[in-house]
C-alpha cells in the first residue's frame, strides 16, 4: 500500500477519531448499565407476588401519577434531542433553553417519584415491609438515582459551555449525556410497563 493512499481511506487503517471512540465506549457502558437493571428487573419479577401479607401494587400504585411521570420523561427526552441539535448548531441560547426544559421536566419527574415514595413509607409500605416492596424500591429508586445523576451532569455541562464554550471535549461529554438521558427513558419504558401497568392489571 502506498503512503499516499492512507489519508484517503481512513477506514482501511489507523485509530478512529476520539469522538467515535468516546461515544462507542459510553455506549458499551450504557449497555452494561442496562444489564445491571436487568438483574433488578429479574429480582422484581421473581418477588412481585411475595407481599408477606402487606399491600400489593394494585393498592399502592396511582396510574395518573405514573402517566404524568412518563409524559415528563418522554418530553424531556425530546427536549434533550433539541439540546443536541442546538449544541451542534453552536447556539448558546437554544442550548440553555432546551437544557432548562430538560431540567424542569426531570425535576418534575423526580418530585412526583419522591412524593410517591414518601407517601408509601408514611403508609407503612416502606422497603422493609415485604420482599415485593424491597425489590420495588431498589428498581425504581435506582432509576431515580440515575435521573438525579443525569441532572447533575447536565448542570455541570451547562457550566462548562458557559465558561469555555463549545469545545470538542465539551461536545463529546454533551453527546454522552444525551445518550445517557435517552437510555434512561428506555429503562423507564420497561419500568412503567412491568412494574406499574402489569402490576395494576
Amino acid at each position, binding site marked *: 500500500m502506498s503512503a499516499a493512499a492512507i489519508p484517503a481511506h481512513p*477506514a482501511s487503517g489507523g485509530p478512529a477519531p476520539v469522538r467515535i471512540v468516546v461515544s462507542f465506549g459510553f455506549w458499551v457502558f450504557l*449497555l452494561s448499565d442496562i444489564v445491571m437493571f*436487568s438483574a433488578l428487573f429479574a429480582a422484581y419479577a*421473581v418477588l412481585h407476588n411475595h407481599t408477606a401479607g402487606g399491600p400489593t401494587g394494585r393498592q399502592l400504585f396511582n396510574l395518573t401519577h405514573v402517566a404524568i411521570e412518563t409524559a415528563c420523561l418522554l418530553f424531556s*427526552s425530546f427536549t434533550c434531542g433539541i439540546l443536541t441539535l442546538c449544541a451542534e448548531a453552536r447556539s448558546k441560547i437554544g442550548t440553555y433553553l432546551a437544557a432548562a426544559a430538560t431540567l424542569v421536566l426531570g425535576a418534575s419527574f423526580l418530585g412526583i417519584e419522591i412524593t410517591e415514595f414518601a407517601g408509601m413509607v408514611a403508609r407503612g409500605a416502606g422497603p422493609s415491609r415485604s420482599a415485593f416492596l424491597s425489590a420495588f424500591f431498589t428498581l425504581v429508586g435506582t432509576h431515580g438515582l440515575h435521573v438525579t445523576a443525569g441532572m447533575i451532569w447536565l448542570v455541570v455541562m451547562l457550566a462548562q459551555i458557559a465558561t469555555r464554550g463549545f469545545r470538542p471535549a465539551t461536545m463529546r461529554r454533551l453527546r454522552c449525556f444525551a445518550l445517557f438521558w435517552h437510555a434512561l*427513558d428506555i429503562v423507564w*419504558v420497561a419500568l412503567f*410497563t412491568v412494574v406499574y*401497568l402489569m402490576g395494576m392489571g
Partner: protein
Amino acid sequence: MDDSNISAQDSAPGEDGSDTFAGLTKYLIGFGLAIMLTAASFWAASTGLIYGPAVPIALSVLAIAQMGVHLVFFLRITTASDNTNNILALAFGILIVTLVIAGSLWIMSHLDRNMMPIDQMIQIQR
C-alpha cells in the same frame, strides 16, 4: 472486498450525520410514535376490552416497540455498515439481558414448584 463502498469512518451512537432540519424531523417522528405507543400501553392496561390474560402480552409488545422507536429515533442506531460496532454491542447486551431475566424467572419458578411448603419444612425440622 471493495473498500470504496465502506464509509470513511464508523458512526457514533446518537449521531447519523443528518443536518439540523433532518435531525429535528427524526426527533419529532420518534416523539410522536413514542407518545402513541405510551398512550396505547396505558389504554391497554386500563380498558376492559382486551381479554385479561392477553393484556401482559400486549403490554410487552408495545414496550418492545417503544424501545425500538427510542433506539432508532433518539439513539440513532441504524443497520448501516458504519453502525456495525454499535449493533454488535447492542445485540450482546440484549443477549445478556434476556439470559438474566428469562433464566432467573425460569430457575426461580422451578425452585418454587419443587420446594416443600414452609410449614411442612418446619415440621420436619422439629
